[in-house]
């Protein structure tokens, strides 16, 4: 197991190294393809390699045509397996935090809640790996209010660190009787305004927590980005009486704002992993820049 992990990590690093060469190759192929399409002469720097490259172009198919980067490689095979999530908290969680985690348990399909006890993070992740979990989600708190969310994709995947704001749990809104039961259908997903590279990466991370839904699912989970603050909403919808255009939405489940502050290219227990992106609010232009969209 250890040696397997070592080997996999080395493969990953090797592939990352090759990326530069692959990108160059891809660029050359693209130029040739363009030239051929437009009927223009092939650029002179590619004349020597033209024949070989042309052969490769002919043999290309859907998968090989796009250059693969190591970044989204983690999710390359994610769609073939249903995600399995492990939910935990920081140490000594307070009662509101445990309630919040219980709600998240219901929100994410295929999620399993684990009491933290005195376990070390590396232990937790090792057990998760061995039991074939795809993601681990940590929730931390500050004086009863949940204020941190860490999503770690498991084989060696990226870890996204979020700050939670404006958390409204179902327990806060109503008493237990009025709450009723929440449907645990696989939900449809809506992502709004994730336009930049970083935004698409975050969208990927959040997307692959959920499994593939049925087409007629009535549950909707929304992640809406507004100037780098992601709003999470959970609704059930019903076709109204007024015809096909009217829809009744019923808000169900907790509601919170997420603010991304770090993405690491490793799992949670790898402190020395490379930081893919980190928020820098102290820079002078921080107010003007938006990293996730628009």
């Amino acid at each position: 197991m250890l040696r397997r992990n070592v080997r996999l990590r080395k493969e990953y690093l090797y592939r990352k190294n090759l990326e530069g060469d692959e990108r160059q190759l891809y660029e050359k192929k693209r130029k040739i393809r363009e030239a051929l399409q437009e009927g223009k002469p092939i650029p002179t720097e590619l004349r020597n390699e033209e024949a070989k490259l042309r052969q490769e172009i002919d043999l290309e198919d859907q998968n090989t045509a796009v250059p693969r980067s190591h970044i989204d490689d983690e999710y390359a095979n994610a769609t073939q397996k249903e995600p399995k999530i492990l939910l935990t908290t920081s140490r000594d969680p307070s009662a509101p935090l445990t309630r919040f985690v219980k709600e998240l348990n219901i929100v994410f399909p295929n999620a399993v809640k684990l009491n933290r006890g005195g376990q070390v993070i590396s232990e937790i992740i090792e057990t998760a790996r061995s039991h074939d979990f795809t993601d681990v989600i940590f929730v931390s708190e500050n004086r009863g209010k949940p204020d941190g969310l860490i999503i770690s994709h498991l084989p060696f995947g990226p870890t996204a660190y979020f700050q939670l704001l404006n958390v409204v749990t179902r327990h806060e809104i109503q008493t237990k009787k009025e709450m009723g039961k929440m449907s645990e259908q696989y939900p449809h997903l809506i992502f709004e305004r994730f336009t930049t590279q970083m935004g698409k990466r975050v969208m990927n991370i959040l997307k692959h927590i959920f499994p593939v839904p049925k087409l007629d699912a009535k549950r909707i989970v929304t992640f809406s980005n507004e100037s780098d603050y992601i709003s999470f909403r959970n609704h059930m919808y019903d076709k109204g009486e007024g015809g096909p255009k009217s829809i009744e939405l019923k808000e169900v489940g907790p509601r919170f704002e997420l603010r991304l502050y770090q993405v690491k290219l490793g799992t949670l227990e790898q402190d020395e992993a490379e930081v893919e992106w980190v928020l820098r609010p102290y820079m002078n232009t921080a107010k003007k820049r938006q990293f996730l969209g628009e």
Partner: protein
Amino acid sequence: MAAVKDSGFEALEKLKSTEPPVFLAPSSISEVARAASQYLFTKLKPHNPKSPFDELLVDGFDAEQIWQQIDMQSQPLLSSLRHEVKRFAKSPKEIRKIGDLAVEASHEGDVDEMDMDDDNDVEDDDDELEADESEGEEEEEDGEEEEEDEEEEEEEEENEGIEDKFFKIKDLEDFLEEGEAQEYGTDYKNKKGLSKGKNQNLSDDDDDYDEEDEEDEDEDEDEEDEEFGAFAGDDNEDADNLGKARYEDFFGGKKKETKRTMKDAIEDEEAGDGNQGTEKLSTHEKELLKLQSKIEQMEKANLDPKHWTMQGEVSATKRPKNSALEVDLDFEHNARPPPVITEEVTASLEDMIKSRIIEARFDDVQRAPSLPTKSKRQAKELDDSKSKKGLAEVYEEEYVQKSNPAFAPATFSDELKKEASMLFKKLCLKLDALSHFHFTPKPVIEEMSIQTNVPAIAMEEVAPVAVSDAAMLAPEEIFAGTGKIKDESELTQEERKRRRAKKKRKFKAESANHPVKKARDTNTEIHNTGNE
């Protein structure tokens, strides 16, 4: 002139006789007052050579203008009178010489002065009162004038020797005294005034001083104040004269300030300034005072320790408790504040969600198309045409394949397929090598192939390849034989023969296994054909 004089005199008499309340109400008394003023003016004219007016212009002028005219005449008169008074103060005997009349006149003048002073202190608005004042002043001046006249006569008698038309010692003295008075302020005059020895005045002066304290400053009153304002005025004078302080001010002076230090003097000045100073100073001096006080304030602020907000980096121990709460700390926040979730925000979100649902435009996870694990079944094409091979040949091929796989001819019909299969075999070999110890070695095709002695590769490579020992040469294959190696030059003849024989035997054995293809003997063929 005489008629005018008489009428003027009459007017004066009439004014004197009228009751005071009549002055307060507007009436014909104003005409009388004007006439009286004119009379007095013309009376005084001879004593004042510098006056620009020959007579007081009353018709069509209002009170202010009349007063101005009188003022212009009386100002220089007053100063000259003061000099005379001081002179008399120096030499009181002269007063007695002049006679009873003069004393009486002066007393009257004093009385009038006192009365008029009180009146003067009150602010005047009405014509009548102003006229009264002017009248009073003029009466006072009259008294002093008479005195002065007699003194003048006496002086003139004394100084006849030096003086002539242009130079008069009296004028010289006057001029000098005026200059001194300007330089040293009113200090000089007052001292002279007081030492005149008019005891009656002292108590009155105190009263006046008190009154003046309460009233507003008025520049018109300044001169009166200067004359009669007593002790406190000295403080003010010291303020002005600090830069020009004289020995007498501090030591052996006529005043009590002998023992005061500079500092005390300053303090007194400041105290005095508050009370009286502004009333005695010109605008320039007032401004100077203000500046000085400002300067002192600023110097004091500089010397004091600064407020904690101005001290740079201040920790909590260095500032008073809870003081940071009172200060309005202002700094720029570089991060955008978190969004406040209002009803509108939720409404807009829900609208967006609804529109998406209607369009059925979701960002769900898409199942990726899995790569085909099994290739498609290729339908075998049945050839309809007659096969070119005979049946016997087919059987022959099968038998050969079974017995001797190496000799079997290629069963693949397509060359491309052959090439593809070769490539695939190579690929499989490499893949198997990657999977460590389940490696199956290459099938040994009996050809002449060079086997290199490949050492085992270290385990720290990316794709660790464990090469099986099957590919390595055994040591015997590298070198077969004993350790005793002899060079060719060392061999004896027999040993050489032995070696050659061995080689031949070996060669024969090998050639028996692989029959060497003989090159076609073209000569024989040709020869054959040639023969036949």
